[in-house]
């Protein structure tokens, strides 16, 4: 079995001549929570619609464990999704939709549906979904998607409209599925801060391409933020082989973003005999800023 659960290889999709996906390549490892970030119009939703088998790519391939997803019911039966814009039948209740999905997803778990009533307590399962609030509709979508017992859960802006408590509960449920069943989660957002706590892999999209994709650990181990107070007021000259990506100064405190592991960089800087030397973790936001170093304005848009 392949380690990659979802693979997109050189996917191109054009709408009226505009390339929404422009040779996109992406790999989502099995059992990961993969965050897909990018500015508006980067192609996140388009990519997710390919992953869920809705759109047919113009070229390239979108695979689930090596098998095409498009027009492949066996693959699609293993995928559940929550799109950014939800659709329910007019006057259909959560229970009606449960019966509907039950007719399509062979692993639909009725017992879990009953069990999750205790989580989604604010939802009246017999009330038409369209009469629920936006947040409640989103909860209903999670409820139904989780009951499909998918191997892959595709979420497009999933927690928009959910209150903080419900967000925490929902993420808890998802991570429980990942831990217990090895579910792979592909989640898109235009906000890095939202994904930082839950994702273990991140891919950043811009103009229809994945600019970079790494595990969060790789990213965090490769960059370090050092706060240093040198003995002299001015910062001494750094060695040529130390890759300092960015320097800022407030009073006598210098903040350096340096490529490399925290221990190694700390040892290198200790050679200057600083008064203060401290290694700080970077936020995901900072990692992307300094990794991509302004190469693309779109990256800046994501973190602002």
């Amino acid at each position: 079995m392949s380690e990659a659960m979802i693979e997109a290889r050189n996917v191109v999709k054009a709408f009226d001549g505009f390339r929404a996906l422009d040779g996109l390549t992406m790999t989502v490892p099995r059992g990961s929570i993969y965050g897909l970030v990018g500015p508006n119009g980067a192609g996140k939703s388009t990519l997710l619609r390919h992953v869920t088998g809705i759109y047919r790519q113009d070229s390239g391939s979108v695979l689930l464990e090596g098998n095409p997803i498009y027009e492949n019911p066996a693959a699609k039966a293993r995928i559940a999704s929550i799109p950014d814009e939800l659709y329910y039948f007019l006057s259909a209740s959560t229970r009606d939709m449960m019966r509907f999905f039950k007719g399509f997803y062979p692993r639909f778990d009725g017992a879990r549906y009953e069990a999750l009533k205790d989580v989604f307590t604010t939802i009246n399962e017999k009330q038409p979904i369209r009469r629920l609030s936006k947040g409640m509709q989103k909860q209903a979508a999670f409820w139904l998607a989780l009951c499909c017992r998918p191997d892959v859960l595709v979420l497009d802006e999933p927690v928009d409209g959910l209150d903080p408590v419900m967000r925490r509960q929902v993420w808890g449920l998802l991570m429980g599925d990942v831990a217990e069943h090895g579910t792979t989660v592909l989640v898109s957002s235009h906000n890095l801060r939202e994904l930082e706590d839950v994702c273990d892999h991140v891919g950043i999209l811009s103009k229809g391409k994945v600019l970079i994709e790494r595990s969060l650990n790789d990213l965090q181990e490769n960059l370090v933020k050092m706060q240093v107070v040198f003995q002299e007021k001015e910062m001494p000259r750094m060695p040529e082989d130390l890759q300092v990506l960015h320097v800022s100064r407030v009073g006598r405190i210098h903040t350096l973003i340096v490529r490399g592991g925290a221990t190694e960089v700390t040892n290198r800087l200790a050679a200057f005999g600083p008064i203060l030397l401290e290694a700080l973790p970077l936020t995901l936001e900072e990692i992307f800023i300094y990794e991509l170093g302004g190469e693309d304005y779109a990256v800046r848009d994501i973190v602002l």
Partner: protein
Amino acid sequence: MRSGTSYFNKTLFAKHFARFWPIWGLYGLIWTMCLPLGILLDSRSGWTQVRARVLPLNYLDTTGWFSAATLLAVVFGLLAAMAVFSYLYSARSVSLFHALPLRREGLFLTSYLAGLGFLILPNLAVFLLALAAEAACGAVVFSSLFTWLVVSSLLGLFFYSFAVFCAMFTGHILALPAFYVVLNGLAAGLAVLFGQMAHEFLFGFDGAAWLTAVASWLSPVLRLSACHVVIPTVMDAAGNGWADYASAYFTGLGYVALYALVGVALAALALAVYRRRQLETAGDVVSVSWVRPVFKYGVAFCAAVALGETLYSLFSALLPRGAWGLLLMLLLWGAAGYFVAEMLLRKKFWVFRGSWKGCVVLLCCLTAAMCLMEFDVTGFERRVPDPARVQSVSLDAGSTAPYDDANGQGLLLDGPEDIAAVTELHRAIVARKAAIEGAEPDYTYEQLDSGLEVETSGQAWVQLRYTLTNGSVVTRSYRIPLTQEALDDPDTPAARLDALLNAPGQAEKAYFGAMAEGDYLISAVVTQPHYDEEGAYYYDEKPVDSAGLEELWSAVQADLADGSLGRRYLLENQARLENCYVNDLILTFRRAGQAARADGSDTYSVTVTLQTTGARTLAALEQYGFDLDSLLTQAQAQLKERQ
């Protein structure tokens, strides 16, 4: 991990039925009211085998405009297609349905069958209920009810499939009914508009039968309106005819079955289109990329022809007459249609900058087409068949005086000399195209010194229909201006037409061409017109002595043969008024081998206007006691009336 078996999903099938129950419910209710309830209500005044046969067939009869079955199939076929494929018209529903683990074939077939079930299942239920109702009332005609079931179901199959086919080409739910209605009648509408335009600007154009036939087949609603219920007429021993309702039957089963097959083919095509459909087109007026230019230029062309032609006719008084005035309207409305289509496709109003080149191409094409027509590049207007290749030709000159039974009778000519004469007429018309087209339609009268008012100018509508030796048919029609001067000049079309109409033997054919061998004269009367004091017209009939019938018939035949009687006139000129009497000779014949019947259905009459030149006929009338002094010529009658 591939699955090739999920072509049907019962959950989705049931969901469609549950969601859209008002459609099949209303459809079933209407038919329930018509048939089972109709039978029960009808039975209160006595339910018979005849009623049981006729009632279900009544709903298939198109004697009016549409049959009830056609109308319901048209409306509910569309509604069913709109309902079950409504998920294609919003990005949200598209995402839900196409993320489901079902192939597109499965989605299509399940939805298609559900929509079809909206029509077929209620039909079946109504059929069974109606059968039970008939049984309860004591008279069952299974064949009649079964015919209703088959025809209404096949009609439903066709119109529903047609709507589904239309549904695959659009991403907007409101565009679907528009496409459906337009495509149902587009061919017929375009054929009519083309015909009107060609009539006006293609000299001699007389319609294209093949175009009309094709347009009819491509306009299902119109074609199916030709199917109706036949009630045979049965003749009893006394020779009386009566409608045999017990043998009533539906005539159009073949057509309906053929269209149902077309419906199945359309459904297959719809599936092929659906498999290739780009789902991001939800919300677009046209969802298939290669259809977008077809739609754009199609709308522009239809707007040019339909609105251009209509508004040209409406504002004809303000516009210069002729091809260039029409071209102006075509270009104006073609451009308007083009940009409207572009706006619909691009979903915005400001579309001019990016698309004006296409509009220029369209306008150039319209101009080129009009030039082709106007300058007769194809040679259509100049074409006169070679007489050697003409098998026969029919000539219809419309109404000619006198207005008896030879009026409006066309001539069917197959002799070489007659055919040559017709082609000469045709050449004379073509040679004078400019003069004929330039002549305003004009009817003028002039009062002579004698006080007689005569027609000095008018026009004749001539239709020529050549059957060539290779079996093909060439038809032309012309408006020929008529003046006394033209009639007096033997080379003019008017004079040639006059000569053809009055060629020896033609009058006899015109009056008695339909007479069968063995038919014989049984009576003759001469009419005597009068005006009462209030000016109301009426006439008396003076019978001719039966002893003189045979002689009278011989005299009439002799006069017709040498042209003494039956002279046709294209103008109400002095010759016509002075030669023709106001009196008609009405000859009544009995059909060969038929006994006399009380209702007169064994006989027929032929009216021949008496003429002063018909000396033998007049002599025969006088010989058997008719007072010739009581006859009045048209001229005498006119002058008398003025006094």
